[in-house]
């Protein structure tokens, strides 16, 4: 069975239709890249998949391990195994980094009928993973994302992913706002979580990220539809030639 199936997905915000029939199948162990020009609907897709309020699905379905997500709220989808790395991670004044992680992990455990984490053990676990991502201890004591640099925010997103063990991870323009060094660290963190059990959707505008996180499939999104699918060489194609030709061909076809 496919991990994530997006079937003929149409969605809108308010009165504006954004997605016009997306079809995509992601199996466990696969990394799919979604590229597209601004306004193509990339962020909308990530929000619709993760269940953000304000988006209406007018047609189609999303299946996670064969189960439809449409009636599930954002937190239910999350506990079912979906993770979204935000393009603009949100600031939570006064909420400590460690406390936030603990709350998220406990929410999952509670639903599975298990006990909440043992405090000391959790702190050790978090510190270990944090060190791998180059996240210092004091960053975890600060309030979530408050005053974090772009790189720190993205690294904290990946730390969360490492602790929550999702089955499907959507990375929304994870490379935006990162310099070369930060990009390397974040990519390494993502790659270390790749495996036969997890599926990933990497949304990006530029090819650069995909040299570090090498995708199995590349899809081009334009005006709310996937207009072309290929392997990693398609990304290099786009980098060289841009989106315009591809889009024109799509309209002609």
């Amino acid at each position, binding site marked *: 069975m496919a991990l994530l199936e997006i079937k003929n997905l149409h969605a809108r915000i308010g009165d504006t239709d954004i997605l016009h029939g997306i079809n995509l199948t992601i199996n466990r162990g696969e990394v799919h890249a979604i590229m597209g020009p601004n306004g193509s609907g990339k962020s909308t897709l990530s929000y619709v998949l*993760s*269940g*953000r*309020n*304000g988006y209406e699905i007018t047609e189609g379905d999303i299946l996670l391990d064969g189960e439809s997500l449409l009636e599930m*709220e*954002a*937190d239910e989808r*999350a*506990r079912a195994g*979906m*993770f*979204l790395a*935000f393009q603009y*991670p*949100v*600031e*939570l*004044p*006064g*909420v*400590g980094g460690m*406390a*936030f992680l603990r*709350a*998220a992990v406990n*929410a*999952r455990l509670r*639903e599975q009928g298990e006990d909440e984490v043992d405090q000391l053990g959790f702190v050790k676990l978090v510190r270990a993973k944090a060190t791998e991502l180059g996240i210092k201890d004091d960053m975890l004591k600060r*309030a*979530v994302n408050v005053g974090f640099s772009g790189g720190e925010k993205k690294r904290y997103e990946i730390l*969360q992913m490492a602790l*929550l063990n999702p089955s499907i991870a959507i990375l929304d323009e994870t490379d935006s706002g990162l310099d070369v060094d930060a990009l390397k660290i974040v990519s390494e963190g993502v790659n270390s979580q790749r495996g036969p059990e997890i599926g990933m959707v990497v949304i990006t505008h530029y090819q650069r990220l995909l040299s570090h996180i090498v995708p199995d499939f590349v899809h081009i999104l334009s005006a709310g539809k996937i207009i072309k699918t290929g392997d990693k060489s398609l990304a290099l194609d786009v980098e060289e030639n841009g989106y315009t030709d591809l889009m024109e061909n799509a309209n002609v076809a």
Partner: protein
Amino acid sequence: MVATTETIAAVEDATGSYKYGFVTDIETEKAPKGLNEDVIRFISAKKDEPEWMLEWRLKAYSYWQKMPTPNWAKLNIAPIDYQDIYFYAAPKSAEGPKSLDEVDPELLRTYEKLGIPLNEQKMLAGVAVDAVFDSVSVATTFREELSKVGVIFCPISEAIREYPDLVRRYMGSVVPVSDNYFSALNCAVFTDGSFVYIPKGVRCPMELSTYFRINEQNTGQFERTLIIAEDSSYVSYLEGCTAPQRDENQLHAAVVELVTMDDAEIKYSTVQNWYPGDETGKGGIYNFVTKRGACRGDRSKISWTQVETGSAITWKYPSCVLSGKDSVGEFYSVAVTNGAQQADTGTKMIHLGQGSRSTIISKGISAGKSQNTYRGLVEMNKGAEGARNFTQCDSLLVGDQCGAHTVPYIVSRNPSAKIEHEATTSRISEDQLFYCLQRGMTEEDAVSLIVNGFCKEVMKELPMEFAVEAQKLIGISLEGSVG
């Protein structure tokens, strides 16, 4: 984008599930309903008070009769009929037990339900409890240990009999009889409260605490507390209240007076959870309290820390008069209103002494259809050379049916005094909620996490025992229907 109906529903008051809603069925001896000189004499006689105390009460009563009811706050109050209230209701069996064995077992069971196991030292972790039950203090523990270091911690009625000099010297010196309508009333009819005296150089070895409860229908709670800290002494005092469900409004008009001498410090923490009334506001507690600290000594310090989540109507301004040189006044407050609650609270920092400093951090959270107002006064007088104030008032609105208001009064009569005041208004944004939801937290978890983050600066001032209870309380008071 505004909060969705789901969000709002998630934070609507759980009126049906007020955790402490129950009534103890014990005979009580009440004074007849209403307020007149006879009732006051009755109370004074019941308490076995000296003549001077009765005179003091009667004087206060005559002041009160001449005062008009205050109405300037942004509160919508139905007129209170003072002739329809019992001003004295003492449990029959309790006439000063010498040990816990003498206490009515029903009462003890009540305390257990409230989570105050008087007879288990371990669980109290060394906290002495003076359990005030409906106008008479029933038990006082740990008195021996405290008396070893000279600390006096007893019911105020006892202090009036045993330590009249101290009481006469200080009671009414911080909040004078004529100060305001409710304090005058309190002076006339107060029935109990705590008296604390810390001698010179003593650091009180444990946190002192009092639990209140209003039980009898139509009985107002008129508690009076007096805490005196001599030179270089320290005490941390906890006040936590619960009350059962009621249909008639119940009046709570307490007076708390604190005095600190040179280098002394009093830390006064309150977690207040009076019954807030139903979703239309009917039946909740009216909480009108006058709390004032006098930093008389140089380098003395008084901190007020409070988490207020209950009451139908709250009118309360814990204040500091900073007379001593380099004295310090602090006010840390979280006030949550939901349903139809109304709160008009804040603080007054009156700077008189050179080098005096004050810090005010107020976090107001409004939800449901409630109104939450911060009202503060910072006054720098001519002698307050080099004084400093820093004030931060933040309001968080949950849903678009409530109101959050800030009314600061700033008066400066000394150029070298610096005042800095900041106020912001915000809400829990959709983005913040979605971020937490996407991490698997339920909406309730998310709101609780974000709100506690919002209140963090205040919460970290609370003593440990209170901090946990307070965090839960904030979560509960914003909960949707339980289940």
